[in-house]
């Protein structure tokens, strides 16, 4: 049904009509709007990707933890799986000497290698406390007598050693250890154990065995954090006042070293975006003096005229407003400190860092509550600092997820204005830590 549709001529006339628009509608305004839209996408995409990645890794971590191996979540034992192969020549000599000394002192010795045989084949879970005891005993034994690291193994049937033998017999067919050639200090965690053969040079085996030297103290950290700050109202006391929202996104990768006592120190690289969108208001007051005059005629002869002046003072207030934006991209080298602690049953981490760096891109007008100015310099020194405190969750023996509410100070030195500007933004961050 084509009834009452305008004829083509009229339709063409309609379509050729042109209408004017206000000054605010310009090509530049459209491009700015487009730029803003793009920037929003650029800002959110990496953030979403990082957060999604973190959630994915968290999810995978929990999936791994939920399998049968995680039925007993045991503390990670610091020892690596090491088989020590001592130098035979010097060992035999040493062994003979020690055996003679022991017999001289009236202490009998026993060959436990037979007790250890066959246990290695079956692995099952034992209680946490039991394993702790076994491991502490292993440590004691190793420190007590180097002969335990040899094949065949001879140990003194006294004190800790005797206890250990008893425990092995009791725990027969449960878990662990034994090797005809030596003892496996095992890693009791959820990670798969790997064997590592170390040839100890002659004479070296006599040194006290320090398992700590086989443990890595290096960690890698990847993190993303966001935050914001809002200036809600205009400050009407000032002639120029600015309100707006500032927000930041920060991504960083760090290498950290465990310094002991829960403290880690490290450095790396960080990239951050700091954006502000706001509105300025300029309140101008002008005092005006209005003078009104009129003539009074005095009708008493001779007729006279008196001019009367009325003076009124008026305060004229003019308010102008406008939009304001800025964006600062920066790259920095963080110097980071981490402190890990247990509060109750939850592991927490305190993170503090300073990020000296340089701005890579600056656009728009930087604003504070009471002023704004264009950021002309593209390369400015900047210094950020972050303080965060939050719970950390072990996903696997190697990966840890940390949730970090944080406060971040952003500052830069404006070369043209010779001033340092800074702001503190509060927000939330997520970090994954990998033990190497």
């Amino acid at each position: 049904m084509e009834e009452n549709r305008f004829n083509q001529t009229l339709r063409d006339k309609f379509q050729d009509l042109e209408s004017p628009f206000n000054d605010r509608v310009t090509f530049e305004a459209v491009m700015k709007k487009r730029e803003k839209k793009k920037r929003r996408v650029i800002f959110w995409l990496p953030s979403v990707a990082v957060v999604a990645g973190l959630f994915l890794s968290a999810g995978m971590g929990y999936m791994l933890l939920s399998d049968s191996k995680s039925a007993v979540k045991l503390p990670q034992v610091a020892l690596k799986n090491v088989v020590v192969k001592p130098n035979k020549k010097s060992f035999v000599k040493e062994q003979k000497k020690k055996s003679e000394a022991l017999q001289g002192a009236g202490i009998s010795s026993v060959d436990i290698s037979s007790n250890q045989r066959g246990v290695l084949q079956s692995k099952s879970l034992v209680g946490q406390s039991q394993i702790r005891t076994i491991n502490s005993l292993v440590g004691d034994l190793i420190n007590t007598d180097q002969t335990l690291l040899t094949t065949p193994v001879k140990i003194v049937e006294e004190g800790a050693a005797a206890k250990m033998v008893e425990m092995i017999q009791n725990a027969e067919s449960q878990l662990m250890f034994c090797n005809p050639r030596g003892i496996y200090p095992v890693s009791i965690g959820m990670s798969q154990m790997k064997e590592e053969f170390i040839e100890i040079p002659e004479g070296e085996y006599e040194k006290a065995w320090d398992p700590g030297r086989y443990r890595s103290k290096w960690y890698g950290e990847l993190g993303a954090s966001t935050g914001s700050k809002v200036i809600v109202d205009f400050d009407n006391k000032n002639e120029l006042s600015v309100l707006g929202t500032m927000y930041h996104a920060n991504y960083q990768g760090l290498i950290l070293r465990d310094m002991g006592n829960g403290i880690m120190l490290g450095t790396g690289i960080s990239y951050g975006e700091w954006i502000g969108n706001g509105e300025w208001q300029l309140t101008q007051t002008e005092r005006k003096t209005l003078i009104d005059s009129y003539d009074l005629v005095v009708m008493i002869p001779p007729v006279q005229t008196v001019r009367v002046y009325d003076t009124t003072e008026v305060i004229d207030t003019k308010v102008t407003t406008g939009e304001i934006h800025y964006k600062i991209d920066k790259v920095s080298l963080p110097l980071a400190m981490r402190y890990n602690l247990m509060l109750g049953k939850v592991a927490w981490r305190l993170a503090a860092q300073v990020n000296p760096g340089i701005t890579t891109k600056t656009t728009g007008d930087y604003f504070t509550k009471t002023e704004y100015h264009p950021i002309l310099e593209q390369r400015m020194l900047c210094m950020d600092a972050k303080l965060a405190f939050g719970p950390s969750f072990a996903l696997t023996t190697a990966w840890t997820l940390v949730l970090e509410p944080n406060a971040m100070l952003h500052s830069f030195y404006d070369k043209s204005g010779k001033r340092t500007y800074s702001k503190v933004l509060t927000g939330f961050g997520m970090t994954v830590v990998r033990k190497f």
Partner: protein
Amino acid sequence: MTEKELVEGCIREDRICQRELWDRYSKKLMSLCLRYCNSQEEAEDALMEAYVKIYDNLKNFRFQSSLETWMRRVSVNLCINKIRARKHIWTSISDDEYRIGFKDDAFDNLQVQHILKMVEALPVGYRTVFNLYAIEGYTHKDISEMLGIDEGTSRSQFAKARKALQIQIDKSEGGAKA
């Protein structure tokens, strides 16, 4: 600059071409937006948004119609989306009612600007359907799909628009004669 050069330039993010596109069509599109929107400000916002969309999507323009037609379509769609977002309630009327219409020559003696003012004065539902059907040349089926309404509702909205316009025209002619 030909249409093809203009499009290619805009895809290359060439500022000169982008400005040329703005200068060439912005006022026409403003006129279009005014016909769909409730106020000058709303129309201006719609125009700017339409241009952002146009610049972003020019790479999808296949030269199957003229550039202006394509730009008009993008702008119309944007305005329609705005109207749909406002959740306007569309009402239907009986078949008899929508047979009432204006005479074929009703607009012959009127200036386009005058008609436009009358169209702009129509309620949003009437105006939208009237614009799409009478001016843009969409069918009621197309309109029903675009606005998410029944075809019958589209027809009835158009009939109501015609009726309202006829009253306006009669008033206008009466006034002129007087």
